[in-house]
């Protein structure tokens, strides 16, 4: 378990937080306890034994979307508050503290390898032993398998020999909920299947999977011995190499929502826009905040399962930043789920691309 960096945590706790305007949970709830410095102060008090673990404390410290919105203006370049809060939360399990609302999800992870229960989407598919392994992710499988179908069709159209495995959840939700042991178990199982597949490139549809494979698996001593590529970068590569040739799209006015992980953790803001620019006929209008300044859809850190009301309020706030008549395109199953509210059409990048190819 990683140590909490007290100096950085206190930097935040002692700061008036010029990031407050970019903290979605604070802005929709108005609660000081979930402000960045509010959480940092609670975490510091826990570390200093001035506070004991209980459900309200754990609930407040879990009120972080890991959207990294607070980093936009943060003057402490070494501080990653979401990581410090995550490391803090991991200590709660020893005290038996958890979010009761996610108990069924933890059971699902243990029983089915997915927080959503029995996997409904496609399992093992494609050509066994193929070089490219496409990792669909449990959220797409559960909520929006159409994006997986689109990716498969695109790979076929590009003539890419690929495979899919009977994947388990990457482990990210379990760690977010404070159960690193379960996360490691899921990671170990996935690693075994990925290694057994013989693939040399792992393409992830879901940004959270990508971040977990690249950032958390090494921490959990489950390093993957293959190249891990995010979906937008991989499909852009196929476009640049001429393996995909988009024709005119029937969709005219679209607005791209940058998922937080792609924008601020992976710094992938140009790739999706280049893909859209290569589809003839599409007119892209940016929302109020975009690129690395994007704002969260409310789906980070599994909020749609942990804090559904907060997630919906954050999504509603974000939706106001888009042109009313634009189709929203994104590249994350959580963002799609969050932004898919009444009166809005939301698609994933792979679907737009597939429709035009």
């Amino acid at each position, binding site marked *: 378990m990683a140590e909490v960096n007290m100096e950085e945590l206190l930097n935040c706790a002692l700061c*008036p937080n*010029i*990031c407050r305007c*970019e903290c979605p949970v604070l802005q929709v709830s*108005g*609660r000081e306890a979930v*402000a960045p410095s509010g959480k940092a*102060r609670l975490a510091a008090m826990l570390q200093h034994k001035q506070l004991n673990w209980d459900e309200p404390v754990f609930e407040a410290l879990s009120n972080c979307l890991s959207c990294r919105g607070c980093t936009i203006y943060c003057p402490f370049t070494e501080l990653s508050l979401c990581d410090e809060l995550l490391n803090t939360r991991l200590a709660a399990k020893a005290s038996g503290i958890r979010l009761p609302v996610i108990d069924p999800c933890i059971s699902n992870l243990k029983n089915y390898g997915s927080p959503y229960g029995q996997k409904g989407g496609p399992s093992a598919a494609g050509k066994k032993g193929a070089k490219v392994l496409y990792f669909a992710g449990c959220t797409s499988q559960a909520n929006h398998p159409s994006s997986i179908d689109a990716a498969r069709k695109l790979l076929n159209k590009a003539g890419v020999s690929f495979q899919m495995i009977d994947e388990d959840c990457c482990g990210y939700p379990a760690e977010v909920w404070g159960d690193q042991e379960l996360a490691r178990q899921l990671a170990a199982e996935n690693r075994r299947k990925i290694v057994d597949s013989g693939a040399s490139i792992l393409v992830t549809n879901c940004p959270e999977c990508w971040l977990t494979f690249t950032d958390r698996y090494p921490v959990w001593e489950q390093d993957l011995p293959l190249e891990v590529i995010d979906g937008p970068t991989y499909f852009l590569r196929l476009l640049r190499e001429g393996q995909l040739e988009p024709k005119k799209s029937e969709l005219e006015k679209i607005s791209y929502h940058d998922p937080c992980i792609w924008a601020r953790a992976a710094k992938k803001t140009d790739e999706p826009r280049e893909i859209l620019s290569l589809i003839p006929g599409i007119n892209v209008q940016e929302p*109020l905040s975009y690129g690395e300044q994007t704002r969260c859809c409310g789906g980070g850190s599994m909020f749609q399962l942990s804090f559904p009301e907060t997630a919906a309020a954050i999504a509603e706030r974000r939706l106001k930043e888009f042109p009313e008549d634009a189709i929203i395109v994104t590249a994350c199953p959580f963002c799609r789920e969050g932004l898919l509210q009444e009166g809005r059409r939301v698609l994933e990048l792979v679907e737009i691309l597939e429709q035009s190819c």
Partner: protein
Amino acid sequence: MTEQIRAVLQESRVEQAEIDRYAEEVSAIIGIEKVSKNHIDILSTCRDYWPVSSIWMLEGAVPALPQLVVWPQTTEEVSQILALAHERRIPVVPYGEGSGALGGVVPLKGGIMIDMKRMNRIRELDHENLLVTVECGLNGALYEEQLNRSGYTGGHFPQSLRCSTVGGWLACRAAGQFSTRYGKIEDMVVAAEAVLADGTVFRERSVPRTATGPRVDHLFIGSEGVLGVITAATLRIWPLPEKRHLASYTFEKLEDGLEAIRMFMRAGARPAVVRLYDAQETGNHFPELGDKRCVLILLIEGAAAIVNGEKDVIEECVSARNAEDTGPEHVKHWLETRFNISAASRLLQKGAVLDTIEVTTNWHNAYSTYSAMQEALKDVEGTMLASGHWSHVYPEGAALYITVVGFPGDDKIVYYKKIWQSAMTACLAEGAAISHHHGIGLHRGQWMAEEHGKGLDVLGRIKNALDPHGIMNPGKLGLGEVRKWQK
């Protein structure tokens, strides 16, 4: 759980049974989801950005604890919360985003913390009359963002822009970095809506001016929650500027810079940003300029023809004081870094005590006040740095902003009280006003009698008339004794 935490300044608390009864009744009125007795909400609203709170935080203590937190969403709910508190004699403290620097939200007598952040809508944007009506819990940066989206600016950019609310600006009588052109918050308010301690709601009309007796809504600007709760305001807005001109100059002596500013203000130029730093701050903020000369930062914006005219006037005035033109890059650097206040967190962890003390001078005592305050601060054992700059200028004077950093060893609070006593004594002796825009809060109240004389008694009588049970933010603005925080 909060009972175990040392609340250094807690004067008293309301009987828990009374709080429980109030919580139950107010929950029935405004909704249980807007009321919390949870210890984490209580811990999180017990302080603001007063350096003393930060020092105590590192020692595991807090200034004082509220007993209940409420989040109203409408003016009517604020009225209901206050009416019931008034009936039960329970103290109430309004809370915005906690960026106040003087302990203005410390709940000395416990009671209710009324967190205004869920009142965050823009009610009306009036294009024809260039007015916006906004609820007071809206974050400052988000307020400006919404105005920008429609082609306007609010013109108010305090250093706390991203961590303060519109209501906080009004309650503390704030000033923004662009204030020389756009005015301070009181210049921007056309009308305000507020709720009195007994729940009475009043709104003034959004007309440019009236001669219908004193504007009672303006009484609430700077009232820091002691008279009632400001819930909304109609503010002036401006079309986004057509042109922006950046310039910086250095002077051999501070007095030359002050005189140049006085002359261009006298001539009618109104640059949005005017900041004159002493040599030490010039070296700290703009190391490329060295620490021998004093830099003047200027930003002029508005209609192009007006900007060009102001630029000509200013150039003439600075040339007359032998200024050296150092170009626009230093202003760009300032624009990029102006909200960064990271040094405080780092220094506090290293055992430092630091604060900023802003006062108002006329031109005749601008330099002498600076010298006197700086000398007084340097005389306090433990002081490592006492530097200053001027900003927010007027034809008749300017705000002087002193930064002080010390490493006093073990007794940080004693040192803190000494530097403030020294600075305020010097300020008052020079005839300057004890605050320009940070306000009074808890800490600066001890000099309010010297600042106002009989005027403080008048303010006290108004307070007693509007809040006869004394429930509104007790112990602030120098009204009422604060037994555990004396000179």
